[in-house]
């Protein structure tokens, strides 16, 4: 009963909010949180399209589900590694501010 467009718009807005957070926040953990938001937006999109496809096909479309599951797994792995990195950087440099970690330059 709900139009596909609603989901897509919500996902797009959520994605944009996440992107804003990822670029503008100082705290590395906050950046990670924002990335989680973006991943969630992606998953909404994937599952909405999955629903649409399953509905037009008449049977369960596996690709969308698998895609969504893998996004969730990747998110879990990303958080684990990201937080471990943040902790390691914190140990090394006593900071979690992303802009103070500026070794990425010539």
């Amino acid at each position, binding site marked *: 009963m709900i139009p596909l467009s609603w989901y897509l718009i*919500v996902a797009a807005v959520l994605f944009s909010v996440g992107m804003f957070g990822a670029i503008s926040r100082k705290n590395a953990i906050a950046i990670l949180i924002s990335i989680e938001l973006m991943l*969630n937006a992606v998953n909404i999109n994937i599952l909405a399209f*999955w*629903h649409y496809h399953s509905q037009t096909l008449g049977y369960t479309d596996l690709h969308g589900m698998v895609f969504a599951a893998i996004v969730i797994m990747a998110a879990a792995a990303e958080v684990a590694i990201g937080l471990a990195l943040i902790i390691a950087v914190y140990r090394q440099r006593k900071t979690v501010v992303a802009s103070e970690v500026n070794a990425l330059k010539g």
Partner: protein
Amino acid sequence: MTPLQIVFLLVSIVTIFSAILVVSLQKIFHAALWLIVTLMGVAILFVLLEASFFAAVQILVYIGAIAIILIFAIMLTRNIMSDEEIQSNRSWGLVLLLVLVFAVIFINQLSQSAIFNSILYPLEVQGQDNIMAFGQGLLDPAGFALPFELASLLLLAALVGGVYLAMDKKGGEAK
């Protein structure tokens, strides 16, 4: 307006509102709490999409694990960055502008799609069968067994890598 639509609107408004709070709040701990609300909202959206499995996984993985770990990390690093500091980069205004432009373009492009305005109806295949098909597809060699195994490998690597990175190497702290 059906009840489902009302639910959807409420949930999505809450979700987006809390997401905005997540990226704008001064206190990082509160941002994490609002993240949980957002994730909950997304889980409800999943339920509305009849992907109850993913709703449960969303709660289990995101709220039960990811959010908790994030909160742990925030607590562990709390003393370094006090909440009184400005939490945004100087260029946040520019970023906001760019992101707004991006969002407008994004949604505009989405609306060009042919299926943009189609309506989602309840699925003919009911929940239990969906999960069954999903599970069998994941373990089917002709289906997604390889990506599934690769994902498990990824998780294992993340586990080991996370432990290694976060491990307090002996002597590193001793000064």
